Each structure stands twice: as C-alpha cells, then as structure tokens.
C-alpha cells in the first residue's frame, strides 16, 4: 500500500481540465505549500506585476507566474529561470502588442546561459529541441500557461493562430557553452560572463540545415543564406532570423576566423533575393507601410533580407550534439530585443524544500 494516491491525483488533474486551465496536457494541481516553495526561490514580492496587456486589462504577477510554472510541471528551483524568461519576453516589442493573439501563433525561443543550466539539468546538447528533459519542457510550457491563464489568451477566442507551430511552448534550450567556440549568447546580449541569464524571442518556425558536405566556411554559410532567404517567411521589407548552430558548424566557422560578428556580417550581405524572384511570388512591392505586395514594376536587383548585421536581426546561438553538421534556422517573429536577463535566484541555502 502506497501513500501516493493516484485516484486523488487524477481527480485533481481533471478538475484543472474542467476549469479550462490546461493547454491540453495534464497539469500539476498547485496547492499553497507548493506555491510557497516556488516563491521562496526568488526575492520578489508575490504581487509584483511582471506583465500587463492594456487591451484586456489583465496582469501577470510573480505569484500567478509561480502557480502556472507549478502547473506546467516545473520544479520550484526552475522558477527564477521562468521569471527571467518571462522578463526577457516582455522586452520583445511584439509581446506587449498583439503578438500572443496573432494569426502567426508565434512561439517563444528561450536560451539559457551560465551555471544554472547544469544545475537544473537544462539540456543544451543532443536533442536540444526536445523532448526528453523536464527543465526544457516545463520552463517553456510555463510561459504558455501564463499567457493562457493569466492573460486569458486561449486558442479560438483571443488567440487566433491560423495553424500555430509544432513545439510552440517547449523551445527552451541551454546554450552548449562547453562546445561553443564563441562567447556565450548572454555575454553578447550584455550580461557578465559566468552570470546565468536568459535570452528570448518569438519564432514563427524553424528549419534545419544539414551540411556535412563541405569544409569551406563560405560554402557552409551560403547554405544557411539559402535557407534563411526563402520567400515564404519574408513578408515585410526586411525580415529577422536566427541560427542555432550545432557545435560542428560553429567550430568550423570559428576555425576559419568567423566570430559571431563576422558570421552576421557575412549573412547580412548574402541573405536576400533578386527582385525578380520576389516578383515571381508577389512580394516585390515595397509599400509605405513596410508590408510587401505584388507590384511587378521594380527593376531587377538584390533585396537584402536582413535590415542590418545587428544581433536584433540575427540571433546566433550554439546548441546540440557534436555528432553531425545539423543546425537550425529559426524564423524570428518581429525582431529580437538583443538583451539577456540575469537569473535572480535567492541564495540556495535559503531555499526551502
């Protein structure tokens, strides 16, 4: 006879479904003692407002974020990372407007740097986009439940995603700092080396680049440029993108003298399409509002995809196993804030269990 009561657990889970609190998968019903364990991990007032949407007059507090993180299956010690991820997403232009309601159904990409990744078991190596790792899956899911429950943005009602995208609430990855040849993403994004931090943006989707075919850095970059430059993902005058390089690709580029800045400069110059290519798909016209449209009158020439070589237009991270030349191009919804948020955990000794 066990002390654990599966029947009570099932009834509690069903209760949460009945309230409309679930994203479709079972949630962990949160009680006051569990909430207090979450709140004990941070030095922040439970009623601190960490997000507000004026169109609904709905707010997210630290306490509501903690309840939703618990429901998502996070352990209490993940909570400082959930808050940093949320704060990083609030820095994104699109999340303060209509991003969460959008027909594009954008997904957070959350990148964790620093010692917290190993401490919490956030995967940055093989199978980094999941599934299989509790911290990766539940930290991302916590963001989704906050949007659903605290903002009240639910599919088919205030959330109008036409199709959404696979893995929408589960793209939380650690950067593979051990095998990256470059400084951590968080350092590029303004946080001191060695300090745990989270960078985040919204994605429309991702697409792999499998190149185990060349030892030329330029040929490899040209393969990325081709994928990044697809017309389907390009709707405004310019677009933003990102690459989550596997260690093999990153190391190959670094060995050829490419740092992050050089990779971005090369891609900013080479990503784009001829006006005639864009005309063939009805996206050559450049109106005053910045949305492309069918025009047909422009002389041929090269339209660069990226507005600039700044990080906000091209996020570069390193993650995955070093076992193959397989990287991921990610499609950024608007642009990236370019700023990482430090993880602010209360000193560990003070954290109750």
């Amino acid at each position, binding site marked *: 006879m066990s002390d654990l009561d599966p029947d*009570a657990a099932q009834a509690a889970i069903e209760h949460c479904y009945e309230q409309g*609190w679930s994203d479709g998968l079972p949630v962990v019903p949160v009680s006051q003692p569990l*909430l207090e364990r979450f709140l004990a991990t941070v030095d922040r007032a439970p009623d601190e407002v960490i997000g507000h949407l004026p169109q609904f007059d709905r707010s997210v507090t630290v306490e*509501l974020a903690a309840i939703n993180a618990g429901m998502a299956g996070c352990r209490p010690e993940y909570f400082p990372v959930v808050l940093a991820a949320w704060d990083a997403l609030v820095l994104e232009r699109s999340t303060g407007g209509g991003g969460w*309601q*959008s*027909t594009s159904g954008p997904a957070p990409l959350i990148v964790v740097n620093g010692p917290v990744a190993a401490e919490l078991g956030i995967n940055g190596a093989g199978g980094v986009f999941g599934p299989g790792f509790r911290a990766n899956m539940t930290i991302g899911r916590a963001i989704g439940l906050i949007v659903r429950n605290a903002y009240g943005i639910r599919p088919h009602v*205030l959330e109008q995603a036409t199709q959404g995208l696979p893995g929408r609430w589960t793209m939380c990855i650690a950067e593979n700092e051990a095998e990256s040849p470059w400084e951590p993403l968080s350092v590029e994004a303004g946080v001191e080396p060695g300090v745990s931090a989270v960078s985040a943006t919204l994605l429309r989707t991702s697409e792999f680049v499998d190149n185990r075919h060349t030892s030329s850095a330029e040929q490899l970059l040209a393969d990325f440029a081709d994928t990044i430059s697809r017309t389907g993902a390009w709707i405004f005058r310019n677009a933003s993108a990102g690459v989550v390089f596997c260690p093999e690709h990153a190391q190959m580029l670094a060995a050829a003298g490419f740092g992050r800045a050089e990779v971005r400069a090369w891609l900013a110059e080479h990503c784009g399409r001829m006006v005639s290519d864009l005309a063939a798909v009805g996206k050559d016209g450049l109106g005053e509002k910045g949305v492309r449209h069918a025009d047909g009158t422009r002389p041929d020439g090269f339209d660069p995809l990226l507005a600039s070589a700044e990080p906000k237009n091209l996020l570069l991270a390193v993650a995955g196993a070093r076992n193959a030349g397989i990287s991921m191009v990610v499609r950024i919804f608007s642009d990236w804030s370019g700023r990482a948020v430090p993880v602010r955990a209360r000193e560990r000794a003070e954290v109750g269990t």
Partner: protein
Amino acid sequence: MPNAILDPTGRAPVPRETTGAPRAARRPDLTGARIGLLENTKHNADLLLDELGARLVAEHGAAEVVLRRTKRAFALPAPDELVAEFVDGCDVVITGVGDCGSCSASAVADGVVFEAAGLPAAVICSDAFVTTADAMAELRGAPGYAYATTAHPVAVLSREQVAERAEHLVAAVVALLTDAGA
C-alpha cells in the same frame, strides 16, 4: 481537509454585465454629418474606409470626411488623445479593418470606447475574426456589440474589389450609425 487547488488566472469572479455598455445616441440619418475615419494600417483598410466615407457623402448626405487618422499600434486600444480628437471633431466614426488576430478585437474595443464617449461608431471586421471580436466585446462589458463584417480575406483584394466591398457594406454602416440600426 486537503489543500485547495490554486486558480492560475488571477480573476476574481465578476458579475456578468447585464445592462451592456453605454451606446451613443443616434441621429435619424447622416444628413450633414461630419465623418471620421480611423484606419488600423491593415492592408486595404485605408482604401475601404475612404470608399465608405466617400459613399456616405455622395449617397447619404454626410457633410464630408473631416478627420482621417491611422492607428499605429493596431493591437492596442486607441490612445485617449486620439479618441478625444474624433469625439471633438466628428459626428460619427468608422474604424477597421479588423483583419488580424489582435486588431479585430482591438477595433471592437475602440468602438465600445467611442460609444461611451458619445460618438456613434461603425466597426468593420473580417468575418474570419468574429469570435475574437465578440470575446473582446464581452470583456469590455458590451456583450453582443454590433459591428459590420465583410468576407475574409481583405488584404489581397484589388482596388476595384475593395470598392465593391464598400458598396456592399455601406448599408450596414449606415444602419450602425443611425436610428435605423437601433
């Protein structure tokens, strides 16, 4: 006694608004009315509103389009100053086009605000977004808020097709803005 399961929404149960939000008084017709247009940057929204404004003047005796503004943050409620500008300078306002996930709900929210400020409003939404528009009306205490719909999609229409849409919409807009819609 087991612990309670905590609510993740932060919403206190609020009594459902039963009386509905205030609605501006209507005039019997649009004779001499000063028209305001608030377009939300969605493709073809400006064309559609211009066509409607022109038809109200040409066919329904409206004085003229006196104010035409663009709402920059289409997902968010119109700023107070912008609302005041319409309330001060116009007799009726047409706004839209609610043609995206956030701007459809937002257009309805603006309509509710205009009505509360005493300005009759005609909100136009694509018919693909009625659920989210209705949900916003309810959130704003105006369940059942009436607006005009046009078939989805709007963004890909040619100039001529937009003019046809306006022709079909104009009766609904007049009904929304006058006693005929009461």
